[in-house]
């Protein structure tokens, strides 16, 4: 049977996390599903989860009165959605919209923050893994900003 603990253990994000910690993390996890075109979260709302996307695609968007919903990045199977749960004041900075039917595992941020405070080794492990994701997204964003495909002036 495919348990949440087993699914989390197989995800690259939790690779090599010890079994005790994996069990602790699983205690904060639940399966979630979002229909196509529904918002998973909205800018300004309290950020109390992050998601391991198992299926589907999610657009990170910002709303502009002039241009409507602008997608800044899309995420898909295997990606991690959301890190605002980790950083005060714990509010989302973008909208997240399911572009397709999306299945994910939601990790309760409050639950995980509490466990990380109680066990700093766990906290450091989680923080290192998020730092890696943040570094990847920052690098991608910098490349996007370079506008490499534009005509050289």
């Amino acid at each position, binding site marked *: 049977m495919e348990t949440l603990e087993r699914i989390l253990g197989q995800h690259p994000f939790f690779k090599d996390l010890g079994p005790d910690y994996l069990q602790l993390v699983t205690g904060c996890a639940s399966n979630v599903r979002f229909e196509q075109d529904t918002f998973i979260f909205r800018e300004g709302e309290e950020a109390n989860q992050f998601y391991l996307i198992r299926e589907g695609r999610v657009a990170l968007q910002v709303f502009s009165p002039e241009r409507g919903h602008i997608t800044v*990045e*899309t995420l898909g199977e295997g990606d991690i959605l959301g890190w605002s749960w980790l950083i005060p004041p714990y509010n989302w900075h973008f909208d997240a919209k399911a572009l397709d039917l999306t299945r994910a595992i939601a990790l309760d941020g409050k639950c995980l923050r509490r466990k990380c405070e109680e066990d700093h080794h766990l906290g450091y492990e989680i923080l290192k893994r998020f730092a890696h994701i943040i570094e990847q997204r920052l690098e991608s964003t910098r*490349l996007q900003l370079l*506008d*490499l*495909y534009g*005509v050289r002036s």
Partner: protein
Amino acid sequence: MASVLEVPSDTTFVSAGPMVPRPFVVKRFRKETDDTFTLELEPKEGRSRFVFGPGQFNMVYVYGVGEVPISISGSPSTPGLIHTTRAVGTVTKAMAKLKKGDIVGIRGPYGTTWPVKEARSHDVVIVAGGIGLPPLRGAIYEILSNRKDYGKVVLLYGVRTPADILFKDELEQWRARFDMEVFITVDRAVSEWRGNVGVVTTLISKAGFDPQNTIAMIVGPEVMMRFTALEFIKRSVKPDSIYLSMERNMKCGIGLCGHCQFGPMFVCKDGPVFRYTQIKDLLVKWEI
């Protein structure tokens, strides 16, 4: 090592010398996007078959304006000659005004080819950025015409905006195949766009290839190629299984004039297709 051009002995232009352009007639002009277009050419005289390898380029001469190097974007297995490029400089802007029946001069084909033979029995991941798709199209045709010889075949294509996507119909056809995966991403989306947004390197994790048995072929701006190659290496693809197509100021096309010198090599003769390991140290040298 990338395949070195084997110039067929019966190619008409060779007898005239490699610096003499051969007249070709514009059979068809097709606008691809706002600033890109495709020319379908055939020789004014002689045989219509133009023998070339995927990844090679021609020097295209617009009479009275100038000559530029342009990759061949057609299939090596079909007659005729196809060039797709962007109207960005004096010569390509003049090319964008050509119409059916006009004549251009062609010298070539020049340079090394994509390792389509070496890639047999491997997974092949093709990464194109912006106007980098045309130089890869010949390799895609070759691979698809011998599809059973290859493992997984994946095309990752990144462009600036949805309006800049080249060969839309063809991409749809490739995407509809059961034996090829096509992922497209844009750097900047309009609100109607429902596809992927983000740089092309973010697609590599979606490709699902066997890193130990993968050949990667990359074309795009140099920064994009560098980061893409590093992403492949991060995912355990062997550095000498990664190939890039370089662009420099090619003039003679045969390694004589030195305009395209790239360290100890000439891009026109030793490239444009290089193994990553051949050039990785040169890619980060400011002076080159």
